[in-house]
């Protein structure tokens, strides 16, 4: 199970975090993400991995986090969980799925619908532009939404769907104070993406 975007998703995250995640320190320097690309960070982060797939945070996942979703293929949702009719995975069943040929618009709608299914409300896309992701054509968009507890949050999403696989990096934090405080260092991580030669 891959993990989710923001405290909108935190309800899902809590159980996984307590039972499965291991926490490690990301030191400043070059970091490899899921055997797919590298990023550079000039500050240290806490990395929670395990069932939670590469979540980075400074003050804790309930405050802010960067999520790395790599290699999403045709027919998969962001969490790469097919869902089920019953049980805890039922929530994934109708989550929007990636399709080859999706444009940045389609992908922004996919992320918005995913958030909407995860207790976020009043979700608005506040900007959408082209952007390079690694050396590939990509996009970036910014969202505003209210989380399950009415806290205003912002998210910055950066990605590419070139070569028929979707890669997304999502950063979310409370609109007040935290989002802007860490935005520059997150942007620096976004810009530093370099695909590994061995990645698809």
């Amino acid at each position, binding site marked *: 199970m891959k993990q989710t975007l923001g405290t909108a998703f935190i309800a899902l995250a809590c159980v996984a975090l307590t039972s499965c995640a291991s926490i490690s320190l990301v030191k400043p320097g070059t970091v490899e993400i899921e055997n797919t690309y590298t990023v550079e960070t000039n500050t240290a982060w806490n990395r929670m991995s395990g069932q939670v797939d590469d979540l980075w945070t400074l003050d804790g996942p309930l405050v802010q986090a960067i999520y790395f979703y790599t290699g999403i293929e045709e027919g998969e949702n962001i969490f790469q969980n097919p869902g089920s009719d019953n049980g805890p995975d039922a929530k994934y069943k109708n989550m929007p799925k990636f399709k080859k040929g999706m444009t940045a618009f389609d992908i922004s709608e996919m992320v918005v619908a995913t958030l*909407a299914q995860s207790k976020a409300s009043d979700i608005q896309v506040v900007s959408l532009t082209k952007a390079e992701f690694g050396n590939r054509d990509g996009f970036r968009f910014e969202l505003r939404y209210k989380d399950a507890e009415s806290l205003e949050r912002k998210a910055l999403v950066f990605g590419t769907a070139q070569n028929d696989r979707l890669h997304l990096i999502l950063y979310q934090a409370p609109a007040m104070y935290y989002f802007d405080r860490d935005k520059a260092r997150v942007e620096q991580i976004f810009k530093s993406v370099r695909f590994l030669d061995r990645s698809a």
Partner: protein
Amino acid sequence: MNRLRLWSSILCATFLLAACNPGQPVTDGQTALNDEESEEYKPAPLPDIKVGERPDPSTDEAGLWLVVEREENKLHRAGNLITDRRLNEYVRNIVCDLSGPYCPDIRVYILRVPAFNATMAPNGMMMVWSGLLLRARNEAQLAAVLGHEIGHYLRRHSIQRFRNIRDTAGFLTFFSMGMAVGGVPGIADIAALAAMGSLSSFSRDNEAEADALGAERIAEAGYDPREAAAVWNNVIEEYERADIKREFSFFLSSHPRPEDREKDLTQRAEELIKAKGSPGSKHVARYRAAIAPFRTMMLRDEVRRRDYKRTVGLIDMLLEDGFRKGELHYFKGEVFRLRDNQEENDRAAALEQYEKARNIGGYPPRMYKSIGLLNLRQKNMPAARKAFRQYLKLTPNAPDKGYILSVINPSS
């Protein structure tokens, strides 16, 4: 999550789930509390709750209230709580008309959850989901559901149900199902809530009693009591259109059969109309005016469920009802565009719906963006550019203007 909090949530969620949720299929892997179980143990009937009554602190009922009150506190800061004063007053006034002296004891919370449901907790906390407001066709239908919920409250069905389940083998099943749920519902919880609804629903007797009480109250308040049957009719039709057949096992396990329910409600309505000498009102215009400012939002939330077949069926039913048809065609087009099933020819179907919306009017400007996106997908660049330009003309400050301009003029 704190263990106590989790259990409290489970217990609370249990009692938030009232009768109206039509539920998801009870699959082979689940054990619904069947009639035999619920009929075996029948606690002594309780007297109706009194106006302003709080349970004796030494009772299990007081414990139940405490748990629910804790959940109610969370509701105040729920992100999906609709706080619009006018809409809240509108629903609240209906509740007050129906509940009379109990009005101060019932608190209404309208939540943005795109599914048909209203719930009533034992302490008077009523939740109304936006999906119910989208589906009701008139005020009498909304009142019928609210009246039914008030019936559960007055007759203290929650505590009856709690005692019944506590004393049967179903308790563990009940709680293990509840592990998936807690607190304020969101879209993701609908499936889990509905599955649990099949276990935590009230007994057939309780449902029939709430139906009867609800029908009486809406008739007394001047509404057409036949609309109570119409509500269930709509629910049945929505499921049928989506081919969700097995869902009815939920009704069969613990609810009156939908056909019986409809028949009983219709018969009861005829009696009430005869006794009263007039059929009462539906209040279509008043209802439409009240929900109009939220209809676009509710339809967008419905589409975001990505439960395509069901949403198409629902929109078709709403089209037959005829309120704001242009907007409905736009959203039907959105469903086809998002589903993008080539075998179903969804792209052409979407464009056809957008065209109908354009002829009728009342669609949002972003329809042109959708038309542009569809044409972009079809590699029909001239048509895509034309639609995107129209979108930017109508929405000069569009948040995605930068990206759209780069699509229209790739070289710049």
